[in-house]
């Protein structure tokens, strides 16, 4: 091991020297999120929006799929990154009401890397791709909106019709969906 120092001598001179670290330092979570955000490589269907450019911990992601069931829709997600990032994943909620097997009507999203499979090597970019994938390949096996999942499994045509109807603004079953088509 490094031949280090003697604590005994250390403070005698250390005390007078004053602090070298009086400069405010960014937290490790801040450093990491800055890295994630400045190097984000988004597909052309995704765009981020930062309401406050100084606050990199809270932002929106807007996904506008250009193929699949959800083509021409516009879906907004709110990201909240906590001080324990990347040990803990960001909290992500869907702010647009959507008829989707893996997103419930409160905006909860069932994506494995947002919960049980999160890992500190993953980045914000990984989540964006995960969310994008949900719109291309809705997964009826792990449903949050069970009715939507059942329809997708039993009758793809009907599911496609329901999605279009919901996106145009209308009722599917008892639930009313606001229009979320690209203007």
């Amino acid at each position, binding site marked *: *091991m*490094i*031949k*280090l*120092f*003697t*604590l*005994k001598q*250390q*403070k005698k*001179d*250390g*005390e007078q*020297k004053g*602090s*070298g*670290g009086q*400069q*405010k*330092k*960014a*937290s*490790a*979570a*801040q*450093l*990491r999120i*800055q*890295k994630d*955000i*400045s*190097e*984000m490589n988004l597909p052309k269907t995704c*765009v*981020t929006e*930062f309401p406050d*450019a*100084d*606050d*990199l911990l809270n932002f929106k992601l807007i996904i506008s799929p250009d193929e699949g069931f959800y083509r021409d829709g516009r879906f907004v997600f709110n990201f909240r990154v906590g*001080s*324990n990032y*990347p*040990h*803990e994943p960001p909290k992500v909620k869907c702010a647009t009401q959507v008829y989707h097997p*893996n997103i*419930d009507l*409160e905006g*909860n999203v*069932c994506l*494995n890397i947002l*919960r*049980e499979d*999160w*890992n*500190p090597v993953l980045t914000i970019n990984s989540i964006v791709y995960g969310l994008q994938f949900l719109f291309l390949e809705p997964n009826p096996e*792990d*449903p*949050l909106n*069970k009715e939507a999942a059942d329809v997708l499994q039993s009758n793809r045509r009907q599911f496609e019709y329901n999605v279009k109807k919901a996106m145009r603004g209308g009722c599917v079953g008892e639930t009313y969906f606001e229009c979320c088509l690209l203007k």
Partner: protein
Amino acid sequence: MSVPSPNPGLSLHSKRWNGLRHILEREGPFCKDDFTASPDNLDFLQTKSEVLIIGAGGLGCELLKDLALMGFGNLHVIDMDTIELSNLNRQFLFRRTDIGSSKAECAARFINGRVPTCRVTPHFKKIQDFDDSFYQQFHLIVCGLDSIVARRWINGMLLSMLRYEDDGTIDVSSIVPMIDGGTEGFKGNARVILPGFTACIECTLDLFPPQVNYPLCTIANTPRLPEHCVEYVKLIQWDKENPFNVPLDGDDPQHIGWIYERAVERANEFNIAGITYRLVQGVIKHIIPAVASTNAVIAAACAMEVFKLATSCYDSMSNYLNFNDLDGIYTYTYEPEKSENCLACSNKPQLLPIEDPNTTTLDDVIKSLCDSPRFQLKSPALTTVMKDGKQRTLYMSTVKSIEEATRKNLTQSLGELGLQDGQQLTVTDPTSPSAMTLQLKYQANEVEMN
């Protein structure tokens, strides 16, 4: 609180310290190079050393007891918590009448009353309530924490206190070693962190076990475990029904009671047995049962490291001890390496000389970062923490909405932006795997600030 009368034999010159004297007043084959056998060593321990204990819970009580009885004369302890009934089985410095009082204050009062050679100063505060001037007064910091956020915070604080010599090496007098203990049931670990030299908390962040999270779809549709039902109520029903019009508070018995009732309803619906009030509490507050003996072992290992560092009588453990007595006893010590790319400890501030902050614009700085052979960056993103502690994004070209909001900063001078001599900028760039810290160094003496 009543404390038994102090042992009069426990004074500085009593025979009580003969054991320590054998170690500290005699040379031995295993002493560190800088060790000199002398009565000064014991004197240093008892009168000069200042050790901070973070946390006065399960590990903290053990640490206070161990260090006080080991001869340390000046201890400080920080804890923001108050004593609860469920602490009393293992946090032996507290009594039933102390419930509701500050852990730090009660623990200090107990030790002060019982060990006359030790003076404990309590701080009924959060660690974040203090700045570097507080932490600088200590030779050593020992942590008995239950939170990763707190560990990361104190780790960052100790790293930010490092000073560098002109040749870029660390000024060893600015190092405050951190000894970190942690326990979880029958498992525990103890580690020695020499900030800037050995692996820090961020270097090994992925060693922390991830929080147990159940898939949301399982919770919502196919619950099988009582925990799934509790999580359902916590995640879905609470927000939907918002029974008390406030965010969920795991310490409020009314909240836990409500969750318990709803969880039982849901469990009945799916024929799941085993929901109890305690289980609900455990799931909501992520409680892992604490085992007193594990705390004792880990605290003892930590106290030993404090003693070795404080006296130089032996090399420190290198540097990470695992302990597990779930099935027999298993321990293993190994040396995680300091990560070259660690965002926290391999990010030594680099000086950036600025001729005149009143004429140099942010754009000039960015151009020089791209053009200079020293940096050769491609599209640097710059942020800083202002004097008031507020995070500020100076410029980021890669994200459209941030670029638009920060473009106006490019034409401003550093002075106009309120950046001061010595201020640190965090720079990320695609050419580098980690963030870089630049420290502004103004050549012109006076900076006009309005």
